[in-house]
């Protein structure tokens, strides 16, 4: 960690205060060498309507996924992408976005698959920056192309596959979707169209904690006391050091993954990005319907 940390007292309560910056800190540090600001939004046109000066856009839909296989970019493609955006391996990255940093934490997680060391989330995201009347620009950011190294993607440490989830029964599993998706009443988010899972319900034993319980109304992260209450006490994580989170396609659960790993400091947290679109369509995997988590399934 080479770049100056944000010493905002709010962040000191978290296990990894170095993973967050405040809007004040970012404004004071804009345009300093060694810092790259990245915006990642759900609405892929939002960046163009105005962004933090000097920020580059990362498009979750067109840039992070492999164009053919249902997977992320490989090391070569990621190196090419980040080089073209002018990002260096030793840059400090500050990521922010719309909707309580939902997609920003997703980008954070994907970049961590490639082991980029210093990545920070702007607490409160795009909404807080705008709410505070800070500057936005539509000027296109020019960063000189870099030579980001080819890094093999690490799919073991923070990513879980279906087989990992089947082997995980008995340890905490967090379902971050809406209560209706958890119970099986619907297979997609309220107000969002159906993305095509064939069965509704949840993975047996999963605790239901919709992702947005981690944020305040102003889209900043909740206090450590609140987060401890929501996840450690009420969702039954307790003393456990190995947790998997999932949602529908792995984006909302990146947000919870960030909270569990960086704010609460749980040692091993993995995001199951196959999530419900895979599990709810897979053959012969156990599913529970209704509001109760359900028992550890036998024979899996």
């Amino acid at each position, binding site marked *: 960690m080479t770049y100056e940390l944000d010493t905002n007292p709010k962040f000191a309560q978290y296990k990894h205060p170095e993973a967050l910056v405040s809007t004040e800190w970012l404004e004071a540090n804009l345009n300093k060498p060694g810092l790259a600001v990245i915006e990642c939004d*759900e*609405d*892929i*046109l*939002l960046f*163009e*309507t105005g962004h933090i000066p000097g920020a580059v856009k990362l498009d979750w*839909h*067109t840039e992070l996924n492999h164009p053919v296989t249902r997977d992320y970019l490989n090391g070569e493609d990621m190196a090419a992408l980040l080089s073209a955006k002018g990002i260096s391996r030793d840059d400090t990255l500050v990521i922010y976005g*719309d909707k309580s940093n939902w997609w920003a934490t997703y980008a954070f997680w994907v970049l961590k698959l490639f082991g980029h060391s210093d990545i920070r989330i702007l607490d409160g995201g795009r909404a807080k920056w705008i709410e505070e009347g800070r500057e936005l620009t539509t000027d296109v950011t020019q960063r000189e192309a870099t030579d980001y190294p080819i890094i093999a993607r690490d799919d073991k440490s923070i990513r879980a596959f279906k087989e990992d989830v089947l082997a995980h029964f008995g340890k905490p599993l967090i379902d971050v979707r809406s209560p209706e998706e958890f119970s099986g009443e619907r297979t997609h988010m309220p*107000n*969002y*169209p159906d*993305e095509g899972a064939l069965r509704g319900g949840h993975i047996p034993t999963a605790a239901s904690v919709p992702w947005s319980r981690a944020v305040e109304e102003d889209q900043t992260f909740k206090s450590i006391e609140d987060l401890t209450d929501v996840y450690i006490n009420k969702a039954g994580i307790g003393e456990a050091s190995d947790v998997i989170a999932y949602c529908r396609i792995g984006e909302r659960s990146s947000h919870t993954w960030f909270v569990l790993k960086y704010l609460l400091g749980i040692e091993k947290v993995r995001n199951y990005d196959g999530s419900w679109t895979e599990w709810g369509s897979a053959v012969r995997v156990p599913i529970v319907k209704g509001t109760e988590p359900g028992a550890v399934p036998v024979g899996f």
Partner: protein
Amino acid sequence: MVEYTETAQEIVDAFNEVPVSSKLELLLEYANALPALPERYADHPELLERVEECQSPVYLFVEVEDGKANIFLTAPSEAPTTRGFASLLQLALDGQNIDTIKAFSDQFIQDLKLSDLVSPLRIRGMHGMLTRIKRQVQEKSL
């Protein structure tokens, strides 16, 4: 080859003429051009129908008069993609004959060739808007 209204054809042509890299910029121009709701609807949100298929709060209303339809759509500025889609449909269909709208092909949405840039959820949201516009036209022209 599907036949469109003149404006719809112009929109399809515009999206097919620009390089892929400029398509989002073009969509943003349309988003910025979405007219504000007239006062009679701006002050009466309960008259508007929510497009449930859209990720953002999109509302619409159709007026039918003398066999023609006036189309009103609104979407928040934090959702420019959705505003862009609303604007395209508004331009393509506003002021048209009700029979033209009833016969308007969903192929319009595919012909914009945006599916590589925009997630399937968004594309389905636009289908939701079009379906609801047609349904309101149908109901109000009986």
